[in-house]
């Protein structure tokens, strides 16, 4: 008897240990899989989020009981529409997206946005290194109109006669007014070789006119540099993507080897990108101290300090900025200005002092949520106001037409003369 019980116990014990081992082995396998798995949860993204997305614990997909009760009114409305509306109803996806958009409209925060899958795909395409389009940077003006901020040299947009400052009213007959920037871009981009008809309004031209552009495969530029006459080094950074700091390092090494007297960092029309890239780029010029402080809604703060190993810590520095310099660009410019590391020349910056976290939703759409505000080293909040340059210089359309760049000229003058 005793024997059986003991044996029974043994069997149980054995089974228990076996389960433990099995469970442990399973977990070990799982964990190993996570490390080895080829895709990390973080994805490289184009502007404008200024925070590297990380895989966050998922939220519930079901409403709580109280939420459901309050939300019943929505279904009351939807069923009424299904029954009575004379006209075409959107499908369930259209309804869902409409509801989400309406939800976001109650927040009054233009940076918390919802992006439909096809537009999210466009953004992912941009970060891949090339995209198919016309080769232009665009920006939404305060009045909701889409404006050409700059044209890429040698690309179809420029060749077709578009100019910075042009307002794009329509693309292939679709009005772009009031659209979000990526929605508008999705109407302008298209397959290489296809043609898009853009209806353009230009200052000084009475009537809007049509410009036909044949799309091409455009490499997304990150950085450009050259040595100017008089021994001034010039670097233009287009966006704070995941390669920004690496490319800047390479560029700086090249330029500094030529012993320049001063350096111009051009951040005009740079719409931003990753926050960590902004810190890294700032650290090339600033040796120590605060670069920015991030504050979230419960008051917690996170200070980002300059990292070691900057390559251009002493060289006289000018940073060029304008209304298209936003977000990560303003982090760098703000740090340069507050620490006295360099001089800002140009026009007042965009004024985006908030940080968004990007969430990929389960159907491929994206929700970018404002999660924090950031402050310069001197604790300034530039949100809504922008940074004022130390030296204000305008760049007019006439200047651009004539091929002049008074902002750059002033920067050179400053570096050569010290004022």
């Amino acid at each position, binding site marked *: 008897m005793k024997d059986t019980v003991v044996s029974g116990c043994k069997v149980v014990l054995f089974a228990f240990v076996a389960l433990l*081992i099995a469970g442990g*082995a399973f*977990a070990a396998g799982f964990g190993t899989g996570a490390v080895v798995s080829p895709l990390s949860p973080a994805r490289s993204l184009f502007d404008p989020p200024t925070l590297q997305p990380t895989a966050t614990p998922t939220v519930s997909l079901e409403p709580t009981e109280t939420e459901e009760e309050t939300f019943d009114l929505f279904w009351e*409305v939807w069923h*009424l529409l299904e029954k*009575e*509306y004379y006209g075409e109803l959107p499908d369930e996806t259209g309804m869902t997206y409409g*509801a989400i958009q309406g*939800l976001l409209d109650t927040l009054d925060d233009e940076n918390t946005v919802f992006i439909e899958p096809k537009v999210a795909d466009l953004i992912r395409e941009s970060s891949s290194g090339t995209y198919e389009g016309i080769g232009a940077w665009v920006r939404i003006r305060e009045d909701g109109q889409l404006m050409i901020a700059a044209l890429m040299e040698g690309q179809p947009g420029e060749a077709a006669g578009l100019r910075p400052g042009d307002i794009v009213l329509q693309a292939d007959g679709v009005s772009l007014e009031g659209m979000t920037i990526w929605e508008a871009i999705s109407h302008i981009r298209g397959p290489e070789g296809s043609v898009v008809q853009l209806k353009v309004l230009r200052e000084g031209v009475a009537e809007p006119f049509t410009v036909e552009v044949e799309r091409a495969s455009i490499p997304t530029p990150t950085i450009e540099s050259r040595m100017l006459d008089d021994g001034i080094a010039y670097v233009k950074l287009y966006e704070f993507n995941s390669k920004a700091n690496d490319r800047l390092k390479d560029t700086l090494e090249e330029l500094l080897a030529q012993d320049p007297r001063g350096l111009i960092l051009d951040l005009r029309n740079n719409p931003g990108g990753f926050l960590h890239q902004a810190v890294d780029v700032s650290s090339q010029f600033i040796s120590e101290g605060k670069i920015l402080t991030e504050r979230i809604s419960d008051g917690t703060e996170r200070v980002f300090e300059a990292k070691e190993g900057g390559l251009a810590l002493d060289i006289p520095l000018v940073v060029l900025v304008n209304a298209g310099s936003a977000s990560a660009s303003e982090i760098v410019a703000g740090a340069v200005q507050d620490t006295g590391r360099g001089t800002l020349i140009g026009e007042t910056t965009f004024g985006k002092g908030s940080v968004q976290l990007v969430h990929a939703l389960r159907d491929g759409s994206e*929700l970018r949520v404002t999660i924090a505000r950031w402050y310069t080293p001197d604790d300034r909040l530039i949100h809504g106001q922008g940074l004022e340059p130390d030296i204000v210089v305008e760049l007019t359309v006439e200047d651009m037409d004539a091929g002049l760049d008074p902002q750059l000229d002033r920067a050179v003058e400053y570096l050569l003369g010290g004022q």
Partner: protein
Amino acid sequence: MRTQAKVYTALAVLLIALLAFAAGFGANWFLVHQRLTADDFAQQDPPEPFVVFWEAWHILQRDYFGDLPDDKQMTYGAIRGVVAALDDPYTSFIEPQPRELERHDLQGHFGGIGAWVEQRGPGVFALVPMRDRPAAQAGILEGDVLVAVDGIDITAETTLEDVLTMVRGPVGEIVHLTVRREGEEELLAFEVTRQEVEIPAVSWRLLDEAPDVGYVKINLFSERAADELQEALDDLTARDARRIVLDLRDNGGGLLQAAIDVSSQFIADGVILYEQKKGDQEKFYPVESKDLVVDMPLVILVNGGTASASEIVAGAVQDRERGLLVGEKTFGKGSVQLIYDLSDGSSLHVTAARWLTPNHSQIDGAGLTPDVEIPVTEADREQGRDPQLERAVELLQQQGAYPPTP
């Protein structure tokens, strides 16, 4: 034997462990790859679309920097969003409070002095007190011209809307009016206590310049419109009016039933409009015959502000050849909205049908074209001239427009 058993046991354990490890690795691989790209989602059974909404809502609740509106406001936001997705300017969601005000408008109440205000020139606003209302009771007479309201002077720049806003207000409050009266040297001052005044839908008079022409203006097709019209027509016929000008300019519409009732005052029988609803067969609304008061020659004044219910009346009169339309092309609203009161006091206006004129014309977006087109210019307005009314009177007196239908 013992050793063998031990070896077997050890091997079994090892095997289990290896299998479990592999399973774990595979599970992770599988899960990670499930999350990859939108393409992957397309290949599986797509998740029920609306879960994405709850995902978004909960992410906001957890992460959003700043204050979130409460659940109710977020629900209203979602509703407005889905209504916006219809892309129909006339289908709308209205939260509980504004519905009260709107109900008042359609029923016809607000706090005022009980007088019509007529603009007779730049900065010249004459009062026409309504019988037994506060203005009349305070001693204001027809034709008194407003000089100041609560101490604020009326100037040449003051608009009619400004005057109405100044004069109207909360029920029970006093408004101080200073007027100039013909024949009096000094300005006169009155203290008028605002009462709940019913918004008159209809005003009328015999024209000074043509005493056999009755002029009737319908402002809004409210619940009271048809009854007030009856009153107007009774009064005018009693005072020997033999032709009618019906002014529907800037009348934005109102209740469908009111439009049918008003049409029935002028048209003897037959179709007033056709209605198409979702999934249903076409239906028509006939004249609801009353004692037909008027079979006199009729001209209707219309302009770009004549919309909806007004276009139903004008379209019926035109197509049934009951009268002429004079003025400018109408607005072009051929859809019908039904108002649904929701369980929490809010309401939903839903475009539920399209209406067509007796000749099956669809006026949505197009409007009705008047039989005689005449504009009113800025200069006309500043001089207090009304060329559309003048032309209407001319037409009526020439030959009485269309002969009355038997």
